[in-house]
């Protein structure tokens, strides 16, 4: 079964940490979570996914509907597929 790829983008900012923690808590055993600190890496992916703010979460190559207010919440992340096996 293919793993669900979850990418979390941060910038070493205090507001980003809760999102990283939330994603890691929600991730199922079939999720592969990668965290990018944009101050060190991930510039090409930012361009590819058209990310304009952080924290941001990408699930299987698709930017999750998030960050409309204080950052991704559990409901939004679950809707994006985190915590569920890859389809």
């Amino acid at each position: 079964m293919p793993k669900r790829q979850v990418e979390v983008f941060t910038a070493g900012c205090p507001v980003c940490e809760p999102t990283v923690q939330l994603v890691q808590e929600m991730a199922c055993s079939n999720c592969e979570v990668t965290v990018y600190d944009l101050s060190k890496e991930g510039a090409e992916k930012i361009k590819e996914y058209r990310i304009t703010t952080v924290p941001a979460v990408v699930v299987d190559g698709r930017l999750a509907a998030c960050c409309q207010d204080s950052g991704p919440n559990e409901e939004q992340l679950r809707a994006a597929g985190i915590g569920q096996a890859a389809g």
Partner: protein
Amino acid sequence: MFAPSMRLEVLYFAGCPGHERLLPVLRALAGEHGIALSQRRVDSTAEAAQVRFLGSPSVRVNGVDVEPGADQRNDFGLKCRLYRSSEGQSGLPPQRWIADALDAIVLTIDAPEGAAPVLGQRTDAFRGEPQAAS
């Protein structure tokens, strides 16, 4: 040069410390243009929506965001903003955008009566190179 009708403002929130790196640049530009720099901290999602806050830091000249196309966005909230330009990606807006926005306002103030563009209605072309689409 003194332009009392110009306003340079930076909006930020405490979760993104990056705006502090921008302050020396903004202070220098404000000094060059003889204007004051104001800072506004945004503390809640409600306030973010009210002031159309696209993330920290956001820089506005006479109330207009210096990023080309920013007026088309509505993803307001408490988050850290990323900027892409021909210079690459950064957590701060390119200094050129800010300088161009200030210069555009100065040109408008100095322009003959009836000349376009109208103050506060700058266009991407007027500010220089637009942001890359991808």
